[in-house]
């Protein structure tokens, strides 16, 4: 019963906030929204507790019948029902737990905004959609949540809609993810038409049953599975901002910072990872697609790491780092390291939310200055925020002992011997970790060390709401790695582990652990001018600027993907639209308008008020009439 009510707390709060919008005071609006989230988080906690104590490894609840689908083979019932197992338990804890903390922060962060209650309403709606997505027991309901989070993301990126850049970013995010969503929808249709089932458990059991039996799949069925997996991957790629649909995420940073933290770092973008983990049975029987997933993840993590190295906007650095961390999750999923991927999803949610919120606090203190070349020396000025940012960064770099370490090492450890990954991808992951530590150091040096490159007085916010949210997130980031996830019940293995004949080289773990330190050491010397306070050395205030090298600019612009798509897709489309401007239907419509206009002109011309003119017309008409009747 608790499970059934879970998405309704934020829903009720959303409705209240939307209905009474500006009539609510800040105190009341934040009490409603944050209270609803607190309740959701509490109930999620209870549910996870209940799940771990129950004998079966899942809880499910039927709310109501939605509709029935029929194909030639059989009928499928699509119900609104929720299904909670280990995987969705992780997700609801992350969504409601991190979501609660971010709401808490947002209530303080957005306090002075005129549309505060609209903002909180959208945030609540997002939580509703996300909970539906992760709790759905069938793919149609999952798709509902999937689209719901997309909508909320659009609404929140464009929250400050008076500025054109924000609206364009919102539109871009919506359209780019829509490409993935379309692919996913086709995947669902295909799945239903070839297996006649949309319930996730039923599909999984069906596929496992046939796949593990002696007969195996027919040729047709294995082709179907291949394409279904590929199309679902398309959906996941869109939502999780992986290559080739990654271009929307950096622009999505136009939204308010709590939104970036909640949606574009901690929860929504991991929906793709969740989808693949949820549908792992399908992917298991399409090893080629698993291999694509792994490669996609690896390439994304490298490219995003490179792009992050050249950014000047603090939020865009974090956005690219999100992309690269999701690349790790994808890599893990592709390698079949399901639990490691989901574990990284969870720890990443903690530390990335922390990083974004701290960045938000810093940006607020600097009067909405986001350029890291205009920061510097903040360690002394904002010690609290800086300390938390450091916590976030060491988790991101996966220094031993932090939560990021446990999850990232778990991923890297499984790569070498995986049948769908291998040593090449292992090296990609290691290089990615190196890049991660380098850009993290660069960010830290530029923003928090060196000389102060800002002139305004800092606006220091000491709201206890913000601070407590940040503090809890920091604790979670540090110690979240100690939470042991047992997802062995959820994830299915094709066959019992074979005895591994090739042993992995013994130096693997040493290298994996040493990599971040190498990165730090490298940046310590390479970014010396960022770190050292040049004021003290020569007394001349030197202004740091971002590198203007062509390659740096290329990286800063997201490795040219935007301009590539512009040339490849947008320009031809606009040309086509221009050519098609005078098409048949348009012409028909326009001719009606032209005709009416013509008659209007004729009529006004006749009605000239000239008496003699009227009389002449009158006489002419009579004469015509008589003439006609005589003839």
């Amino acid at each position, binding site marked *: 019963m608790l499970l059934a009510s879970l998405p309704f707390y934020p829903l009720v709060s959303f409705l209240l906030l939307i209905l009474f919008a500006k009539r609510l005071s800040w105190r009341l609006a934040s009490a409603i929204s944050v209270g609803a989230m607190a309740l959701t988080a509490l109930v999620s906690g209870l549910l996870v507790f209940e799940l771990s104590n129950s004998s079966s490894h899942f809880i499910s609840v039927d709310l109501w019948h939605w509709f029935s689908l029929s194909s030639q083979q059989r009928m499928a019932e699509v119900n609104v029902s929720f299904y909670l197992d280990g995987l969705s338990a992780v997700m609801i804890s992350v969504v409601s737990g991190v979501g609660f903390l971010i709401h808490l922060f947002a209530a303080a962060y957005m306090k002075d905004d005129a549309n505060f209650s609209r903002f909180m309403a959208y945030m609540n709606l997002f939580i509703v959609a996300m909970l539906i997505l992760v709790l759905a027991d069938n793919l149609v309901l999952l798709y509902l949540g999937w689209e719901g989070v997309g909508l909320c993301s659009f609404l929140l990126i464009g929250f400050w809609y008076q500025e054109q850049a924000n609206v364009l970013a919102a539109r871009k995010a919506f359209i780019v993810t829509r490409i993935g969503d379309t692919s996913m929808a086709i995947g669902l249709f295909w799945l239903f038409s070839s297996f006649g089932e949309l319930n996730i458990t039923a599909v999984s059991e069906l596929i496992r049953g046939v796949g593990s039996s002696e007969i195996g799949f027919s040729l047709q069925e294995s082709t179907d599975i291949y394409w279904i997996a590929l199309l679902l991957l398309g959906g996941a790629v869109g939502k999780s901002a992986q290559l080739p649909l990654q271009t929307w995420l950096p622009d999505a940073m136009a939204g308010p910072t709590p939104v970036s933290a909640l949606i574009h770092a901690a929860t929504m973008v991991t929906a793709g990872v969740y989808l693949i983990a949820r549908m792992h049975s399908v992917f298991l029987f399409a090893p080629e697609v698993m291999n694509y997933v792994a490669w996609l993840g690896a390439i994304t993590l490298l490219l995003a790491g490179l792009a992050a190295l050249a950014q000047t906007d603090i939020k865009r650095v974090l956005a690219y780092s999100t992309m690269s961390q999701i690349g790790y999750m994808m890599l893990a999923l592709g390698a079949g390291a399901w639990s490691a991927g989901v574990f990284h999803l969870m720890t990443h949610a903690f530390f990335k939310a922390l990083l974004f919120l701290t960045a938000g606090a810093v940006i607020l203190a600097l009067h909405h200055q986001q350029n890291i070349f205009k920061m510097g020396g903040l360690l002394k000025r904002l010690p609290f925020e800086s300390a938390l940012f450091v916590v976030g960064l060491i988790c991101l770099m996966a220094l031993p002992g932090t939560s990021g370490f446990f999850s990232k090492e778990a991923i890297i450890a499984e790569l070498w011997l995986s049948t769908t990954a291998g040593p090449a991808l292992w090296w990609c992951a290691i290089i990615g970790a190196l890049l991660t530590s380098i850009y993290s150091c660069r960010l830290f040096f530029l923003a928090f060390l060196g000389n102060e490159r800002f002139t305004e007085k800092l606006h220091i916010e000491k709201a206890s709401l913000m601070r407590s949210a940040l503090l809890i997130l920091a604790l979670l980031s540090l110690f979240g790695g100690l939470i042991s996830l047992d997802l062995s019940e959820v994830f299915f293995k094709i066959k019992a582990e074979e005895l591994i004949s090739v042993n992995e080289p013994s130096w693997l773990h040493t290298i994996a652990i040493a990599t971040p330190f190498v990165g730090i050491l490298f940046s310590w010397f390479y970014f010396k001018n960022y770190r050292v306070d040049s004021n003290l050395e020569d007394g001349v205030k030197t202004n740091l600027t971002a590198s203007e090298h062509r390659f740096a600019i290329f990286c800063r612009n997201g490795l040219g993907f935007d301009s590539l798509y512009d040339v490849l897709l947008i320009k031809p489309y606009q040309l086509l639209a221009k050519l098609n401007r005078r098409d048949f239907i348009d012409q028909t419509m326009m001719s009606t308008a032209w005709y009416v206009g013509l008659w209007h002109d004729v*009529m006004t011309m006749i*009605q*000239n*008020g000239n*008496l*003699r003119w009227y*009389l002449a017309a009158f*006489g002419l008409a009579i004469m015509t009439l008589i003439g006609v009747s005589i003839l």
Partner: protein
Amino acid sequence: MTTIPLFHVLVLSSLLFAIGFIGVVARKNTLFILMSLEVMLNAVGVAFIGAGSAWQQADGQVMFILILTLAAAEVAVGLALLIRMQKKYRSLDIDLLNEMRG
């Protein structure tokens, strides 16, 4: 006394009517328009008289008297309007009165 054939009467009446109509349409001065209007009315009167004598009926003459009365009344009203117009516009140009155009 020779009877005039009805056809001739009707031709005369039509000619008069046409002259009157052209006068109404072509003239700009409202006074002349009123006069042309009289011509038209009388053209109709001629047609009635001709028809009445052709069929030996009194109706034609009755109708003519009616038209005469109507014309008198019309001229009275028309001249009154003319005076107002002259006072207001200092002109009798009918084309000045086109304020009700569409």
